[in-house]
């Protein structure tokens, strides 16, 4: 993996704090799954949360809280202890990947296709990019909406853009996160290939153009409608749902 475009520090902090929309958090979690460098930065940001927890004035808990939790524990089936140092289970709080690891060992199909879909996303679309139901916006541009909650009229979707096609030039009212899952595009910021994330806010106006000979598939989230800078863009905006 040769990732050149990473998450903005403010975006990472928002993810760590749990203060970003589901839609944006999904894109962040997918990039973190693919990017060791940002994952280490995320651990540092989450440590701020740990510090805050440590410094909170404790709230009184119910008298029987401990007894209730202990009763639940006694009702739990015995969990097998993980072998120490198992590399799959070394990250923070990785319920998702742990469950994945279990299903991988029992299902070979998932192993072979796992490489195209980061695990936070396969909760929504399964483990392959091949079976997605696409809707057409205009020739060469397709989308698939995801059920993630957004802020202020944003979107949560996959986009599939054909070679040579460009998005309409636009700027943003809020934040926009775009993670490349297949193919590549180039815009005013630079060239984006698989694993790269475009983390943009309202200061930037851009027009992504697919610059290789395969369809570009990306995961995109916004937390406000885009602002199209051309008349054509303004006309098609109601149709595209951006």
């Amino acid at each position, binding site marked *: 993996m040769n990732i050149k475009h990473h998450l903005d520090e403010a975006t990472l902090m928002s993810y760590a704090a749990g*203060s970003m929309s589901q839609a944006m958090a999904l894109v962040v979690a997918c990039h973190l799954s693919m990017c*060791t460098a940002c994952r280490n930065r995320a651990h540092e940001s989450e*440590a701020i949360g740990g510090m805050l927890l440590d410094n909170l004035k404790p709230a009184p*808990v119910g008298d029987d809280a401990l007894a209730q*939790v*202990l009763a639940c524990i006694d009702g739990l089936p015995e*969990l097998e202890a993980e072998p120490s140092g198992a590399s799959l289970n070394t990250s923070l709080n990785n319920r998702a990947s742990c469950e994945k690891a279990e299903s991988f060992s029992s299902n070979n199909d998932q192993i072979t296709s796992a490489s195209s879909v980061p*695990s936070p996303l396969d909760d929504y679309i399964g483990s392959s990019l091949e079976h997605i139901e696409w809707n057409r916006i205009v020739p060469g541009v397709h989308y698939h909406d995801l059920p993630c909650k957004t802020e202020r009229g944003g979107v949560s979707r996959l986009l599939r853009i054909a070679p040579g096609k460009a998005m309409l030039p636009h700027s943003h009212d809020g934040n926009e996160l775009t993670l490349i899952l297949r193919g590549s595009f180039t815009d005013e910021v630079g060239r984006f290939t698989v694993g790269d994330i475009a983390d943009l806010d309202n200061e930037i106006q851009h027009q992504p153009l697919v610059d290789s000979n395969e369809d570009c598939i990306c995961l995109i989230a916004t937390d406000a409608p885009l602002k199209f800078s051309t008349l054509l863009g303004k006309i098609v905006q109601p149709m595209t749902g951006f």
Partner: protein
Amino acid sequence: MRQAEAPKRWSDRLSDLAKTKDKALYIQLFKHFAPKVKAYIIRLGLVETTAEELMQETMLAVWRKAHLFNPSKAAASTWIFTLARNQSIDWMRKQKYPEYGLESWHEEPDDESDVCEQVVTSDRMAKVISQLPEDQAQVIYMSFYEGRSHSDISARLGVPLGSVKSRIRLASGKIKMMWSDDV
């Protein structure tokens, strides 16, 4: 030196819990963390009864997932914070907060660079945050304690989104720099 011992002790206890499944150890962890977890959830704006319930869910997850805790990546308080955060968000949104893990996605196995150079201990962070300028500490608190998005903070403080983000970047940069200076 003396200060760093307390958080480390909790991290050691949590690692021991994973190995031993010792109830007495768990009870110590519960008594220390449950009231803090509940306080955090109340700060996020949830009512008492809900906070109590989510606190119990979080503490149950501490038991169930103790084997996933890795003391070389995080302090116990940080790991428990992420559990409490996820429980609360899942409840508020009725949707699972997207989590990341080490991936089968990588073609090549994860290399050495995935090892955090060092676990951030909270006492050190507390000192660092107290040294931040007021406007930077404020955005950190509004994010982590109140769960507010950057655009929400921008609206409440009446400052542009870009300024909120740059305050957070500045704060984060200072926190991480002071932290590494302090090693």
